[in-house]
């Protein structure tokens, strides 16, 4: 039984987002057929696509954001012309002592809403710490009198914020509801591999979700080469790595505007997306690729190149002539020149090795077993980058099941796993987004194009663990009423729970404390 439970824990936590609470039966199902449990999601047709009413295509989102930005600009110009001050957008400050309680639990559905995540898990990193939160309250004459309902009036969300939140919510709901969550974990892996950052600007924030839906998801169980092409031709990536600004020096546009190459995207394609550092390319190869993909851009608000927000090949910006990349000459046949390079480097042995290593590191161990990496590399090469075959090789390997659960869940995995275990389908992404910010993994917003780190050094860091504990305590303070943490431990780990963890939870002085400790237990944090 203990052995079965330990294998079930691997199936649920290493490959998925952890057991769901309630009557899901996840742990029992995972224990009875661990590999089948993990692989079941791989054979669901279209199971990886995220098609939710209200989520729009990249061009539709572009239209909305261009309109919004245009209105903003008009308003600014009008204000400047009339010399009028901008209207104050904030309402009068709420008197601190004017505490009005919020009507609560008039019905069960209201209870459900009330306990669903609504607010940032924490206000900001600056207010963390057991003592820090009390200090301002003690110092003020009317301390601690902010009622639930009377938050300072907030500006209405603009279309960019609304879109980002809707995309985030759809992704969180999918991850929370998924059976094992292996496919969603794969989405997160590939999305981080080919990351953009929403912090790049309004367009990036607007498109962060549609980029993942359009460029990543359709190929998560497809071919690497197809994903690579979809990513590098997606407006979000072209915007993120500045390729829409890159002009062939000898192209008509380059000549007219006296501007030229931007190597950013070309470099990251080779260094981060395919071959990896030391993958056999040189600076000349980067420059050549940069020239080759000049003209890869998207249509802007003016629609000069086509319908706004669509990928277009702008021949006017494209560097004419043949180019040599890694010893091979690519004739200038327009967009096909770059697509040919991508197809070749997608098949390059360095790419196979880079991807295999990163894949195994993500799922199995910071220092993955070399035999496993070799087998993944072989699969990748033999199948011409079939990512479903890659995932199956991982699940079929013995290493992925035998290696101890040494990795610490990323903040995203941790928060999603918590929501799953507590059987809370997110209805509002705010708390999740706040928690991810605090824990250093802001959604779709890594610090650089290399994405979020994927090692324990990053996530099991001192400050991170302390903040994770605070977040766990806050989750517990909201959600522990009416649940029994001992039952939750059974659902999360069953016989794989250690005696120490079991006793720590049983002896906790309250449900709240017990739940916080459960969420922080090695059984819940390690995968």
């Amino acid at each position, binding site marked *: 039984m203990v052995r079965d439970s330990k294998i079930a824990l691997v199936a649920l936590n290493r490959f998925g987002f952890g057991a769901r609470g309630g009557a899901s039966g996840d742990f029992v199902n995972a224990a009875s057929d661990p590999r089948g449990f993990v692989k079941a999601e791989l054979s669901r047709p279209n199971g990886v696509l995220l098609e939710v009413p209200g989520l729009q295509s990249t061009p539709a989102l572009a239209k909305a954001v261009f309109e919004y930005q245009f209105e903003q600009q008009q308003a600014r110009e009008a204000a400047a012309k009339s010399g009028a001050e901008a209207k104050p957008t904030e309402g009068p400050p709420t008197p601190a002592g004017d505490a009005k309680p919020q009507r609560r639990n008039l019905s069960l559905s209201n209870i459900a809403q009330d306990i669903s995540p609504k607010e940032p898990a924490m206000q900001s990193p600056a207010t963390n710490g057991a003592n820090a939160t009390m200090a301002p*309250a003690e110092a003020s004459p009317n301390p601690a009198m902010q009622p639930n309902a009377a938050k300072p009036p907030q500006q209405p969300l603009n279309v960019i914020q609304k879109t980002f939140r809707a995309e985030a919510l759809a992704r969180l709901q999918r991850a929370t509801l998924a059976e094992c969550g292996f496919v969603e974990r794969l989405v997160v892996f590939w999305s981080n591999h080919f990351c953009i950052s929403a912090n790049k600007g309004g367009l990036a924030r607007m498109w962060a979700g549609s980029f993942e839906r359009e460029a990543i998801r359709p190929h998560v169980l497809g071919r690497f080469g197809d994903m690579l092409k979809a990513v590098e031709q997606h407006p979000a990536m072209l915007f993120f790595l500045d390729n829409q600004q890159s002009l062939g020096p000898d192209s008509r546009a380059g000549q007219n505007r006296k501007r030229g190459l931007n190597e950013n995207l070309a470099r990251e394609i080779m260094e981060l997306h395919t071959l990896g550092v030391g993958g056999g390319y040189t600076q000349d190869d980067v420059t050549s690729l940069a020239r080759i993909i000049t003209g890869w851009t998207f249509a802007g608000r003016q629609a000069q190149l086509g319908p706004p927000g669509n990928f277009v090949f702008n021949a006017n910006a494209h560097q004419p002539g043949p180019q040599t990349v890694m010893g091979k000459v690519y004739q200038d046949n327009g967009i096909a020149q770059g697509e040919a390079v991508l197809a070749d480097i997608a098949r390059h042995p360095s790419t196979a090795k880079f991807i295999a290593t990163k894949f195994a590191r993500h799922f199995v161990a910071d220092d993955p077993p070399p035999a496993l990496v070799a087998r993944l590399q072989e699969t990748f090469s033999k199948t011409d980058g079939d990512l479903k075959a890659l995932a199956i090789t991982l699940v079929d390997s013995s290493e992925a099941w035998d290696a101890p659960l040494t990795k610490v869940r990323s903040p995203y995995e941790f928060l999603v796993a918590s929501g799953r275990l507590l059987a809370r389908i997110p209805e509002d992404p705010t708390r999740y987004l706040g928690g991810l910010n605090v824990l250093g993994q802001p959604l779709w917003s890594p610090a650089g194009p290399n994405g979020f780190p994927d090692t324990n050094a990053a996530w099991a860091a001192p400050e991170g663990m*302390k903040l994770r504990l605070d977040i766990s305590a806050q989750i517990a303070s909201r959600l522990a009423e009416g649940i029994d943490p001992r039952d939750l431990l059974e659902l999360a780990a069953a016989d794989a729970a250690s005696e120490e963890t079991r006793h720590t939870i049983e002896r906790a002085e309250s449900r709240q404390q017990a739940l916080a400790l459960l969420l922080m237990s090695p059984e819940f944090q390690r995968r």
Partner: protein
Amino acid sequence: MLRRPNVIGDLAPRAVRGALDGLATVAPTGDPDYAPLHGSIALTPDGPHPALMLDSFFALHPAMPEFARMYHEKHAAVIHAVATSYRDRSHFDGQDVLESGFAGPGRVQSGWLNRALQALPKGERVMSALAVGPTTPLVLRGAAPTVGWTPAALPQAGDDTAMRLVELYQHRDPALASALTQGLLLDKAAQGDDMKPKPGTNGAAAMRLVARGAAKLMAADDGPRIAALAFDGWDTHANEGGPVGRLAQLLSGLDGALAEFEGGLGARWRDTVVVVATEFGRTVRINGTEGTDHGTGTIALLAGGAVKGGRVISDWPSLKPASLYQGRDLLPTTDLRAVIKGVLRDQFGLAERVLAETVFPDSAAAKPMQGLVA
């Protein structure tokens, strides 16, 4: 029968979560077995921190001067050797019984206070009950409307939780133990430890703030007349402390919270009853770590202008070895439900039948205690 035609007496039950050591809060200093059994943490009527004598037999913890004052003004009372109907020693189950009002833990999704609200005559100015904290506690959950209020500063993970986790990591996951320990140290250092109140006193300050906010809401003319709040941190397995120390700081917070209610409710305090209850008591004998383990009998406190106070109400079972429950705990001689039913009957005019069948199902044997409310 209502005491006043249009004012429902106020009620603020306070759950003290984690099992309050009743013998350390209201000490039977007159019982010859008390001092030897409670050992190094026993209260004494003399010494540098003398306990506050309530009568010739019981003494109050010195960290609670406000409660002592209310007691001597006859607006506070103690019920000793009390327990719910729960006889095992799990916090969660014990809290479940305490708040649900059912005879055993059963995952009932409503609490006795909410059911009491439902039983009130229609048209009374009850408004709705106030649930303090981020969620509605079980005691107030149910069909009757409630309102919620959360202090602005959400609690961070407490030191006690952090220490329990560090201990678990030390046994199971040394790498996480090291990371978390460093993180906690860094956090303390960043805050400038000496600039801040110590964690314990901080907890006491937090209790006062919560009570101040709740009292302010209840004092409003159209404010809620009933409120429930919970304080955590009473699970004093180690280094409980005697007249000073960890429990003393918690009791100081509780004492301060009662004073905040008294001050904040103003004229309404006259009609108020605050009930302080906990899921069970703690062992009579201290354990090997200067603390106490989960027990059975404990105390309940009543405070407020409506309380017929100045009394320790107890059918004292004595602390002789043969008198202890299972040889280790204070034997409960009073059913907590009888205390609460007594308050509900006199304060709200609820019928005994309703109390015995709806509010506290299957509790007919625990008759409402007489004369708790003036």
